């Protein structure tokens, strides 16, 4: 299939709209050719994951685009960066890292973007709408936007997201097109009690399992009797996009393109069916934990970034209690949510507990934890998945309640009662 470019596409590629748009369009056209696109299409919003500082190359790319005068053509939110811009000294981030990470922030901010600095852009006022064509980076946000909102984005990698933001054009392929949004693998929940389905800790476990069995598919989850809350969908999306490359899932009866099983599959039959019961879920929950000893150094929350509702829950659990002196509790969130939580009094409760709150980044994207940390506990499937490789630490997965209890006791404690149950 040959790629047909519009007059505007050619103007972009030939540099008529400036050298930054030319470089961005040249990259987009090569990607369009690789993916067999026959045309480009308009996107009306972007979320840029390229903001994460991982080294000199990403910084050089950002500064080159900025030096060429790059300006975004559509409303564009920014993902987490490599530092808490205004408080990095409090976290012991090495100055040479902080200086470069801040240069990368400045480069992307110079392009007319919105400095949201969050991996949960769907929990800001820039939440896209059903059917909207968007270009998003950040794996959890991609899965959330496609699945829970029904907005349409491909899995945009770092470096391509900003090209889409600058040109407002993307290859018309993949999940931008209706036919590719059909489910192809059926995941049937069997004998999973409703009270477990209602629990927050069910969703990262389910997501981790689904991403493992169907890493490159569009899974359709059937049998969920409880309507998941927004934060539950968030943790499902983050986990399924960590253990897999899943960019879209459907939940029959609960997500907008899956009012029925037939709608989720667009009338086709599943290529494969996986039954998920308590055995599979217990295995997945166990696999999320990779401890190397009984110790506990840090309880880490907020991947994806903590929402106001999550702060409300944490504040209630922390009230009147205090963390063990050997255990830190660190919550990652956005500036916007931190400010709301502060005004609501939730931050005071977290601080009184002995917890700390960081904004703009997270423990995986910034070297903000002390070197001595060797074991971590979290309620996040994404933290649990990546922390052993990125931080070289052991990790224990538990509910938010388990995390708070463990922080108080100074060791990992978990309530397994929800997970021992048989079919109800």
């Amino acid at each position, binding site marked *: 299939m040959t790629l047909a470019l519009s007059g505007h596409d050619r103007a972009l590629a030939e540099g008529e709209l400036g050298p930054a748009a030319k470089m961005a369009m040249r990259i987009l056209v090569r990607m369009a050719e690789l993916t067999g696109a026959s045309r480009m299409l308009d996107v009306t919003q972007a979320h840029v994951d390229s903001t994460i500082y991982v080294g000199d190359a*990403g910084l050089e790319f950002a500064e080159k685009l900025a030096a060429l005068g790059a300006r975004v053509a559509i409303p564009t939110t920014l993902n987490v960066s490599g530092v808490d811009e205004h408080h990095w000294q409090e976290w012991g981030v090495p100055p040479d890292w902080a200086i470069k990470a801040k240069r990368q922030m400045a480069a992307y901010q110079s392009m007319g973007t919105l400095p949201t600095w969050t991996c949960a852009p769907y929990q800001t006022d820039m939440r896209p709408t059903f059917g909207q064509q968007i270009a998003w980076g950040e794996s959890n946000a991609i899965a959330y936007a496609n699945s829970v909102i029904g907005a349409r984005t491909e899995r945009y990698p770092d470096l391509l997201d900003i090209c889409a933001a600058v040109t407002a054009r993307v290859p018309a392929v993949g999940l931008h097109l209706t036919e590719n949004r059909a489910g192809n693998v059926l995941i049937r929940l069997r004998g999973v009690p409703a009270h477990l389905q209602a629990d927050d800790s069910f969703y990262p476990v389910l997501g981790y399992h689904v991403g493992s069995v169907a890493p490159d598919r569009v899974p359709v989850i059937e049998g969920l009797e409880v309507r998941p809350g927004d934060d539950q969908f968030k943790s499902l999306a983050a986990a399924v996009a*960590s*253990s897999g490359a899943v960019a879209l899932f459907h939940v029959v009866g609960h997500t907008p393109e899956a009012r029925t099983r037939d709608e989720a599959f667009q009338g086709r039959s599943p290529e494969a069916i996986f039954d998920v019961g308590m055995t599979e879920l217990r295995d997945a929950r166990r696999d999320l934990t990779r401890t190397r000893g009984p110790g506990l150094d840090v309880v880490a929350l907020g991947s994806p970034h903590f929402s106001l509702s999550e702060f409300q829950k944490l504040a209630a659990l922390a009230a009147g209690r205090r963390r063990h002196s050997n255990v830190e509790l660190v919550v990652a969130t956005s500036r916007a949510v931190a400010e709301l939580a502060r005004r609501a009094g939730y931050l005071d409760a977290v601080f009184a507990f002995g917890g700390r709150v960081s904004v703009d980044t997270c423990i995986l994207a910034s070297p903000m934890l002390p070197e001595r940390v060797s074991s971590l506990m979290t309620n996040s499937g994404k933290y649990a998945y*990546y922390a052993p*490789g990125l931080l070289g630490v052991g990790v224990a997965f538990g509910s938010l309640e388990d995390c708070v209890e463990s922080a108080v006791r100074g060791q990992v404690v978990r309530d397994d009662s929800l997970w021992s149950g048989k079919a109800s």
Partner: protein
Amino acid sequence: MSEHVRATALVPGEASGELLVSREPLSFWGGYDPKTGEIIDRRHPLSGVVAAGRVLVMPFTRGSSTTTAILLESIRAGTAPSAIITNRVDTFLALASIVAGELYGSAVPIVATSPLDFERFKTGEHVRISLEGDVWIDFSS
């Protein structure tokens, strides 16, 4: 003696080296250390193996959008695989190499085979990759 495997050059280039084969996908962010070229995903079968300078064979990339940035860093640092073979068009890997070409003039060849041909690669074998994307598996005997 050598065996020919047809492949598509997503990012063309010549390369040769020893194969390192994974049947499981990998996220480079949290899975590949750009300072050393070691595979650091502790749940991955190749955890602890250094892929720098070898021809990495993997079906596709999973997980993080930052995979692209990590591969770009490792190309700049000289710790990248000498080529990567996938069983489909993987845009994350291709993009990193294309941008490395734009910024540094040093792309890493990225080639895609059919899922069936993909099964022919085995760790330890020596391969050569041509500009057109043809892969030759060399046998010493």
